Every structure is written in structure tokens, then in C-alpha cells.
């Protein structure tokens, strides 16, 4: 644990790739291989592939790395291939082409037995519609991964109860899922994913089916937990706000293609194309835009007050609310430039003239 902590840099993430996908393609259909060749050679679009080969494009040439201990969000609308992509990581779906690595092991060439061991011991998964088995008590549900690995009954029950206690479900150990509310059910889903203490969590829109208040609660609870446990998490969502809230880094998907990968700041302040730009248009920029991005380079004598270069827009606006005189932007004792009320308001409106 301490080793992991040390590897983490100032941004809260480590530089060790825990999960990596390299050039993953997925085509659904009988002529997938043929379609792949053609799609690669002629750069066919999704519709062309369907017309010519009767194949549905799921994922197109997706590559990304997830570092140890970070929360990596894959964001996209329904049908963008994000759920398909995440299922490649534990190979619930086999890739048509490409490589998948987990902690140095090739997942895409693994045999059945190794794959089952990997799924049971290294990867926990949470599903959008909970996918809790109605005929199993919570303890039996949570202990399932241990059960299929042949862990003795007493031991797996102990671990299951511990996992349920962590999720504040200790009173419901012998209840059945249909006796629980939606939020509690998804906490069971989380407990099941965490019971075997896996290194990697795959979360497929875990909170989408919940009402907003409970969703918020569970997001906070998960963030706390994630900070405590430091699990490498791949988090699927269709909600950009959720992605920004949860993700250390975000990948945006459209039509099976990863359009942009970056931190929330990078995506909000420098969208890669019009599609991403349209997405982030409504995101309040107050938390992401910083003083050095909106300032005018220093000319003349600096005004009396100064702020740090990485001060977020929200704080700059708060300062202007008290006094509207221009602010000097400083970094390491040097004045870089100054910000006026006009600059700040323009940035808030989304127009950046840097």
C-alpha cells in the first residue's frame, strides 16, 4: 500500500499503467474479420460497415491506459460503445482485434481457467441494473466470487459480512435483494465487487438507474471509499457532470471511437473537436479555468492586489465581487499579467480570447 502511495504524483495518480487497451476493435456479426480488414484499409464509417458487411461496429481502434489507483471515466451517450469497451477488460466480450493488458498480463489471449481466476480475484464489476440474483441472500450474493473459487463457507461468509458492513448493510446479511431499495441494492452490487478485494473495479453506469439524491450520496460514498482503498477504477457514465465529479481522467466516446482523453480541466477548457465542445458547453467553467488562462500579459505597472496563476475562475469572481480593481497574476514571485473584471466575465461566458 505504501509503495502505491509513493508512486502517486501530485495529481493524485500514479504513472504505472494497471489496465491498458491497445488498438481494440469490436465488430459484431458473422463477417467481422472481413469487415475489420476493410474498415482498416478503407477507413469505412459505421454505416458503411453495416451496409457492406452486415456488421455492427462496437469499438473502433480504442487505446487507453489506466494508471494505478486512478478513477478513469469513459463517457459517451447510449450506443457509443462504452459498455462494450469496458466488457473487453474482463473479456465478457472478446475483441475482434487489439490487445488488452492487466498488470502486464495479456487478457485477450488468456485461457478459460486463467480468465476465471482473473475475474474472481483481480476484477470487481458493478452493473447498471444491479444484476443481483433474486434467489440469493445478500451474504450469498456478495460471497459469490469467493464461492466459485472454492473458498470455505465460513471464511467467505465472514468476508461477505465485512464487505456488507463497509457498505452499511450489516443488518441485511440474510435478506434477499427484493427486500431492499434501489440505492441499497446498488450498495450490495458494490459490496459484491469489493468482497474479494480486487485491484480493479469496472463500473458500468453504476448510479444511472438511481434517483438524483441517492446518486449523489452513492457518488460521495464511492469517492470516499476509492480514496481509502486506492482501487484502479474504470467508471462508465453517460453523464458528463458525473464524469467530471468522479474521474481523475475522462475519455469521451462517440460511435465506438475514443474522441478525447484527458483530465476534466483539459476536456472542458480544450475540447478536441466540435462534438466534445458541444458536450462541455453547459459545464460551469468556474472551477476549471485558471487565472493564467484568462489574463492579459503583463504591461506597465502591476495593480496593487495579486493572485496565484492557478487560481480558479470561481475565486477570481469572488474577489471581484468585493473590489473590481484589476488583479495581478503571479507565479513564483514574478508577475505574469493581470486580469480585469471584463476578462473574468468573458471567460465565464465561454469566450476565451487568449
Amino acid at each position, binding site marked *: 500500500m505504501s509503495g502505491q502511495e509513493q508512486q502517486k504524483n501530485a495529481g493524485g495518480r500514479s504513472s504505472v499503467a494497471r489496465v491498458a487497451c491497445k488498438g481494440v476493435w469490436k465488430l459484431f456479426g458473422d463477417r467481422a474479420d472481413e469487415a475489420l480488414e476493410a474498415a482498416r484499409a478503407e477507413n469505412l464509417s459505421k454505416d458503411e460497415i453495416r451496409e457492406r458487411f452486415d456488421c455492427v461496429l462496437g469499438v473502433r481502434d480504442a487505446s487507453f491506459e489506466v494508471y494505478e489507483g486512478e478513477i478513469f471515466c469513459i463517457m459517451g451517450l447510449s450506443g457509443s460503445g462504452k459498455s462494450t469497451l469496458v466488457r473487453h477488460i474482463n473479456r465478457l466480450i472478446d475483441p475482434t482485434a487489439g490487445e488488452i493488458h492487466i498488470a502486464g498480463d495479456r487478457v485477450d489471449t488468456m485461457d478459460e481457467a486463467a480468465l476465471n481466476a482473473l475475474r474472481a480475484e483481480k476484477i470487481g464489476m458493478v452493473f447498471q441494473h444491479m444484476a443481483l*440474483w*433474486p434467489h440469493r441472500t445478500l451474504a450469498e450474493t456478495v460471497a459469490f466470487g469467493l464461492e*466459485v473459487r472454492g473458498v470455505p463457507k465460513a471464511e467467505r461468509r465472514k468476508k461477505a459480512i465485512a464487505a456488507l458492513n463497509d457498505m452499511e448493510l450489516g443488518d441485511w446479511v440474510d435478506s434477499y435483494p427484493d427486500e431492499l431499495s434501489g440505492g*441499497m441494492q446498488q450498495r450490495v452490487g458494490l459490496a459484491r465487487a469489493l468482497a474479494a478485494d480486487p485491484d480493479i473495479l469496472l463500473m458500468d453506469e453504476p448510479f444511472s438507474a438511481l434517483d438524483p439524491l441517492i446518486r449523489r450520496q452513492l457518488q460521495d460514498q464511492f469517492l470516499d471509499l476509492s480514496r481509502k482503498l486506492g482501487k484502479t477504477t474504470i467508471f462508465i457514465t453517460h453523464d458528463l457532470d458525473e464524469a467530471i465529479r468522479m474521474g481523475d481522467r475522462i475519455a469521451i466516446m462517440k460511435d465506438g471511437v475514443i474522441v478525447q482523453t484527458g483530465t476534466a480541466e483539459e476536456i472542458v477548457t480544450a475540447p478536441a473537436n466540435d462534438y466534445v465542445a458541444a458536450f462541455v458547453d453547459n459545464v460551469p467553467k468556474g472551477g476549471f479555468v485558471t487565472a493564467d488562462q484568462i489574463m492579459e500579459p503583463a504591461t506597465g505597472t502591476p495593480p496593487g492586489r495579486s493572485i496565484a496563476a492557478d487560481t480558479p475562475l470561481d475565486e477570481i469572481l469572488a474577489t471581484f465581487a468585493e473590489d473590481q480593481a484589476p488583479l495581478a497574476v503571479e507565479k513564483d514571485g514574478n508577475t505574469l499579467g493581470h486580469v480585469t473584471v471584463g476578462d473574468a466575465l468573458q471567460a465565464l461566458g465561454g469566450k476565451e480570447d487568449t
Partner: protein
Amino acid sequence: MDIWNIFDTEWVPVGTWIDQVLNWLVSDFRFVFQAIKVPFDIVLSALEDGLTGAPDLLILGLIALIAWQAGGRRVAVVSTLAMLAIGLMGAWEESMTTLSIVLTCVFFCALAGLPIGIAAARSDRVWNWVRPALDLMQTIPSFVYLVPVVMLFSIGNVSGVIVTFIYALPPLVRLTNLGIRQVRPDMVEAARAFGATKKQTLWKIELPLAMPTIMAGVNQTIMMALSMVVVASMISVTGLGQMVLRGIGRLDMGLASVGGLGIVFLAIMIDRISQSLGQPSRERGHQHWYRTGPLGVVTGFFARPATTGQGKETAATPPNSKTDGKTQA
């Protein structure tokens, strides 16, 4: 030959062919079919000896207890009354013979039908082969295969079980296939995601979730088997069916009615019990089966002193009311 009435001539002598095949089978392979009879014979004899040999009231009591265990007091009362009616009409002995034939048949249907149904659910190719066979078994009139069965297996109760087996097998295979195919895909996916092998997924997730549908198939198989007993009595199968057949032969309306009513009452008893077996545990309030019915009464006696000993366990069990849980979340 008249060109307008070409079908006056038998062009394709299917009947002759089948006769030839059958005669060949009977003359050269009769020992194979006699060997097939053996397991049926063993199970049937054991059941029949048990059911007819034991005192009537003991069997009646046993049926009442099983019904109580399976479906609660109401089912117990209905089943007991039905069996009582059979006994009072004087058809007890015959009904026990019929019951043992039906139970033997169900036993072998389950033995063959469940694996076939599971295999069909797993592979579309298997299902494409199985389905026409089931269609044939269900649509071909049962009278048609009475003759070959008699020729290959001879007459009697064991042959009756085999005829009934052919007739009653399809619904079990169909509903096992359907039940497993209907299991929500995300339930199976979740099991796979936590490292379950295909076999573990089948036993731990798919079969339990398909169980209500499979039990509906068992129920259908039982009902089909019961409806076959009159037809089967034509190859000298004894029991209630024979009463009906003799009644028809002698124009003895009374005898035929007693046999018919007996079948109806027997059907009511078996149907109620087998249907309550198929109820998912959710609908029974998630109680373990051994905590209800007569066994619940017995285990209740023994469990009480035990639970006071481990008070911590009981304290840790969740609050029983569902509303508590909803407000907590």
C-alpha cells in the same frame, strides 16, 4: 390406369416399409428393447409394491403431510379430500397403481427431459434438432405408437410407462429450454464477471432462476401422463384407466364414471402439490422449506432451545418488515 385418378395406386408403400423395419427390429433386436424395460420395471415395481402394499390410511396420511409441506394447509385439505373421495368410491387400489405409473413416468421424464432441455437451451443447433422431434411426439396420435410398443416391449404396466413417457416428455423439455433461455442475460453476465465457469453458472444461477418454469413443465408432464392412462389401458395397463375401459366395453356407466372421477381427483391432488413445489421462494416470503409445514413444526421444537443459546445470531438478523428497509435508504 386412369391418369386423372393416379392416387388410386399406392406409389410409396410407407406402411409396408414400416412393417418391414418393425419386423426386422422385433426379430433381431427384441433383446435390446427388453433390456430398456429393465430400469422402468425396477422403479415401477418398487413404487407399486410400496403404494399398494402399505396400509391405505398410512398412504393417505403421507399424502396429506407431503401436501402440507409443499403447499400449506389449504393444499393439504384439498389433497386429503380428493384422496378420501377416491378411497370411499372404492377405487383406492387402482388409483395407487395409476399413481405409481405416473410417478415412474415423471421420474424418467425428468431424467431424460432436463438434460435435453438444458442442452437445447445452450445451443441453437441442438434446439433445431430437438424441436421437430418434440413436435412429432406431441402431434402423432398416441394410438399409432401403441402397436410398435406392444410388439417391441410386449403388453403390461411397464410398456404403459414407456408409452406414457413418449407422450409426456415434450412439455418438460420445452419448458426447461424456455426457462433457461428466459433467465435475464445480466444475471448470467454477472456470474461470468465474478469468475463462475459455465457449469457453475448453470447450477448456481441459471437453473435456480429457471426453476419455476421447469416446475411448470413437470406439472404439465404429470398432467399429460394422467391423461394417457385411459389410452394406455388398451395395452392392458391396470389401474383407473382400466376401470374406464372396462366400463366402456360393458356399457357399465357406473364403473366408467368411478374410474373417470378417480382420475380427476388424482389429478387435483398431484396438480396442487406439484404446482406449489414450483412457487419461487420469493412468493413464500423467503422462508426455507424446512421452516414451514409439518417439518417446520418439528424443527420449531428443536430450534427454539438452540436459538436462545446463540442469542447474538438472532439479534443480528435483519428487521422483518420491508418498510423499515425502504425508509432507511
